[in-house]
């Protein structure tokens, strides 16, 4: 951002504000249906280990509500014990590379239910 003839480094959010621009918040939620019986928690733990093993350079954690965060990408699992499970992966456009990579890992490593 050039101000009064001087080149200044400023925080991106501040620079956008100066330009009168509001960033568009683009989010994705992709749902995978997984053919796996048993408690949802078991699948959560399996996904957690997949994330830990495949994405070693990312911070991966399980929250108290059972959701997994891989940096800023969120993964939640739900479903009754005897039913297939739903896995929701949510990320924003700025995490596109990570979200897309995680989707590919889950699709290749988990038993996906196809219509």
């Amino acid at each position, binding site marked *: 951002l050039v101000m009064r003839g001087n080149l200044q480094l400023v925080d991106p959010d501040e620079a956008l504000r100066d330009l009168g621009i509001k*960033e*568009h*918040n683009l*989010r*994705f*939620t992709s749902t995978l*249906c997984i053919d796996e019986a048993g408690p949802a928690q078991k699948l959560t733990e399996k996904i957690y280990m997949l994330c830990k093993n495949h994405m070693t350079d990312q911070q991966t954690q399980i929250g108290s509500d059972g959701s997994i965060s891989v940096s800023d990408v969120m993964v939640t699992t739900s479903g009754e014990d005897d039913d297939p499970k739903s896995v929701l992966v949510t990320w924003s*456009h*700025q995490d596109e590379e990570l979200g897309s990579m995680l989707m590919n890992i889950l699709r290749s490593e988990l038993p996906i239910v196809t219509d």
Partner: protein
Amino acid sequence: QPLNPEDKLAKPFKPRTYIYGTINCKTFVDLLAKQGISDVKLEETEEKAIIELPNDDILIQVENGSTHIMCGGDESVRVKIRDALLQCLQKL
């Protein structure tokens, strides 16, 4: 001077793109059609728009300043929608 071990481990800086602007839903639907996605239902109000793609089981919520794309696990369709949407926005 040699780099200290912590600096060697630091992640490389990745510049990111900032997207902004307002989505014209009719332009967006036309762009989807060009990508081969033509089964589209558009419901528009003053505050927001809901775009449904029943064949692909996809729902897109467009509001002022934000868009949420909810879809199944088919990455190829999601990427087509993403690219059409990005064409409707400006970038920095």
